[in-house]
């Protein structure tokens, strides 16, 4: 591996985990990518995490919403991290 | 014309001394400047990071970064070369 994008190149056709801005996480098969990290993912599961503050108890409530998408395009500038998901926690 | 100072020459003179960095947003950093490049990425020693507590914006969290760091230039707003850090009336000074 010579440059970081090689890690993405080696993940083509694999299921990858993508962490995006705005507490958005994606897991799907990597079909294509470019130098901006624009991605095409297939059979994607999207998880959006949001927190609300309970006015009464002042406690944080963490909400996770998930949905499935057949195929999507991710604009590179919102990507924070990409990982082959084998050992993700 | 020839003796006009380029902005980065001022930063070059600050190498080896303290520098105060104001980031875009509210973060501030003070450290010893070791070097920099054309993008104003900085190498710093003994840096201290000051940023607001996410739970209570009136509080500042001070973090001492114990090893050398490379600070990404793309979030830097202002550099104060030779600056000894935030003035006493600044938000960051309250954390000291």
């Amino acid at each position, binding site marked *: 591996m010579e440059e*970081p994008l090689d*890690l993405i190149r080696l993940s083509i056709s694999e299921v990858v985990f993508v962490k995006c801005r705005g507490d958005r996480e994606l897991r799907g098969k990597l079909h294509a990518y470019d130098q901006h990290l624009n991605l095409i993912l297939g059979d994607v599961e999207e998880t959006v995490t949001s927190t609300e503050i309970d006015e009464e108890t002042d406690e944080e409530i963490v909400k996770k919403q998930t949905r499935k998408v057949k195929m999507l395009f991710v604009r590179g500038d919102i990507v924070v991290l990409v990982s082959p998901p084998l*050992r993700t926690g | 014309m020839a003796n006009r100072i380029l902005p980065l020459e001022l930063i070059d003179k600050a190498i080896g001394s303290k520098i105060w960095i104001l980031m875009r947003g509210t973060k501030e950093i003070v450290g010893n400047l070791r*070097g920099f490049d054309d993008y104003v990425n900085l190498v710093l020693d003994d840096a201290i990071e000051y940023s607001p507590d996410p739970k209570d914006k009136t509080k500042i969290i001070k973090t001492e970064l114990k*090893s050398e760091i490379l600070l990404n230039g793309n979030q830097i707003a202002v550099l104060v070369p030779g600056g000894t850090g935030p003035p006493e009336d600044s938000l960051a000074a309250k954390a000291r």
Partner: protein
Amino acid sequence: MSSEEPKAAADAAPAADAEKSKRSPSDFLKSVLGRPVRVKLNSGIEYRGVLACLDGYLNMALEQSEEYGPDGLLKAKYGDCFIRGNNVLYVSTQKRR
């Protein structure tokens, strides 16, 4: 980063002796390659891992990486991960691992 760079740096070494205190970002990055690092993002999230490689955008590939939240708690572990450079606030060496 071109493959010429390490050679050029070696040639410049005697001259650099005069300015021992100077250390450019590229000197720093060369010295931390293959070593354990801490990468702090603008969002406050921090990654610790072995720096496998990086490019001019500060995109990085980390091995044996761990994700820590702004609260300092371990959030996740990744075998390998790619971090997009525009999110990076700073990179620092990690003494203990």
